[in-house]
């Protein structure tokens, strides 16, 4: 366990050093968040029919999305990418560490450390001035926290799956870039899922990606009542387990393939 926490602290320290970049990134996110908010306001202003979510909730969702953007599995671990490219990934097999676990720990570190740096100031400022409302109730807040944890675990499973796909180099990169778009859309990060057409809703509810953003966020705003929490958690856990198993299997296959090719 010590090895994993060491990874986490190292990453955190590096990120503190890149404060200038972190700040710049913060500004970017404010900027984008603002634009989204103004766009939604304009849409709602000319709305003639009722909408699946209230505008104030949508604004909260936007800011939550910007704050927690770091948690979305939208890219691969750049070091893994470099390792695969250079071929040194085969050396990883010599280490007395479970490689999947190792990559998973890295993913955890990458998702949490930068997020904390950005989320806290963003939430504070937007909460005070720009329409980020507090959770609908204490129960909602608790549900949000639980679902967020589930989202983190799920997201890391997806990230590691992406990393593993890189073991099939050329096609791997292309597949990942395509899959990334799917993740962004189907998680509700791009547009809150309730806006999608009604006939699409069952599909969106079944897929794992909603567990990343849609579930925790709408628990926060109360659009999903806290009483639904157990089902939500089950959904996340089931998909996480599936993706972990798939990831491990593919990893074994991929590594074997590499060593056969003489990596």
């Amino acid at each position: 366990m010590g090895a994993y926490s060491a990874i986490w602290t190292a990453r955190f320290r590096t990120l503190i050093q890149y404060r200038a970049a972190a700040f710049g990134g913060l500004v970017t996110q404010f900027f984008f968040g603002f634009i989204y908010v103004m766009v939604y306001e304009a849409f709602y202003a000319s709305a003639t029919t009722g909408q699946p979510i209230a505008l104030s909730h949508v604004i909260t969702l936007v800011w939550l999305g910007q704050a927690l953007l770091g948690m979305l599995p939208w890219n691969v671990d750049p070091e893994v990418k470099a390792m695969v490219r250079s071929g040194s990934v085969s050396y990883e097999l010599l280490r007395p560490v479970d490689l999947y676990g190792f990559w998973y720990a890295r993913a955890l570190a990458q998702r949490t450390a930068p997020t904390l740096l950005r989320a806290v100031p963003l939430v504070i400022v937007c909460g005070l001035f720009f329409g980020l409302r507090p959770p609908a109730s204490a129960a909602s807040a608790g549900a949000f926290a639980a679902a967020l944890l589930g989202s983190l675990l799920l997201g890391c499973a997806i990230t590691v799956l992406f990393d593993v796909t890189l073991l099939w180099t050329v096609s791997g990169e292309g597949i990942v870039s395509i899959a990334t778009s799917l993740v962004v859309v189907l998680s509700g990060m791009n547009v809150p899922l309730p806006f999608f057409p009604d006939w699409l809703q069952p599909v969106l509810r079944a897929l794992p990606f909603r567990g990343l953003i849609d579930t925790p966020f709408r628990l926060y705003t109360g659009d999903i009542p806290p009483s639904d929490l157990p089902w939500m958690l089950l959904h996340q856990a089931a998909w996480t387990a599936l993706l972990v198993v798939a990831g491990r299997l593919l990893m074994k296959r991929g590594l074997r393939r590499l060593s056969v090719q003489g990596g």
Partner: protein
Amino acid sequence: MKRFLDAFRLLVRYQGISIRGQMQYKASFLLMSAGTFLITGVEFLAILVLFGRFDAIAGWRLPEVAFLYGLVNVAFSLADTFSRGFCVFAGMLKSGDFDRLLLRPRSTALQLAGQELTMRRAGRLTQGLAVLLWSAANLGVAWSLGKTALLLLAILGCCSLFYGIFVLQATLAFWTTETLEIVNCVSYGGVFAMQYPLPIYQAWFRRFLTFVVPIGTVAYFPALALMGKADPLGSPLAFQVCAPLIGAAFLAMALQVWKLGVRRYQSAGG
């Protein structure tokens, strides 16, 4: 005029070599293009989904918003594709390779412009073009020769503006080693903001997009003229038609700032 043609020929030659080099990695190129197509297409998907629930935004219907979107994305990806040299410039400065450019009897900006035409951005271009063409067909606009010319000018003007932003971003490297992400705000944020009609933004932001970084000017106003739409902000038609020139002026200004940067490099010794 001859100098311009000559410079253009050199540019084309450079680009041809770069393209040929990249075509060698066909499979990877196709997949990456597909990836870029999708990830940039995601933004349009948002528009489509939202228009499934809403009828209009600030009085603009879907084809009109799509038109603006297509215009801005095509311009951006063109500028992005042809300015890769400026993108990697900071690294070149660090490794001391800029001297090599100064030793050649050509303007440094021209040499950078010719570098590394990257085909990977083709995804955004294709997607933008598709949307633009679809919307153009569905707008109910009669596409006369004059209107088509204005559209091309608008794309060019918008492209020049984005190009100018990229040049300015690169010029910063002469003064600081930090990569200022804030400038990415302006370029990527700008393209994102301009997909939607200017009036939806609050006054301060509108003014920013019109006067400080005039992305709004070169995209929104010509689009109005092309669609024959009335402007709630009250701009005259003449202004709308001439707006692309502002893009060219911005680029010219950016190139002057670039020259200042080069001069500083020569004084400080790099």
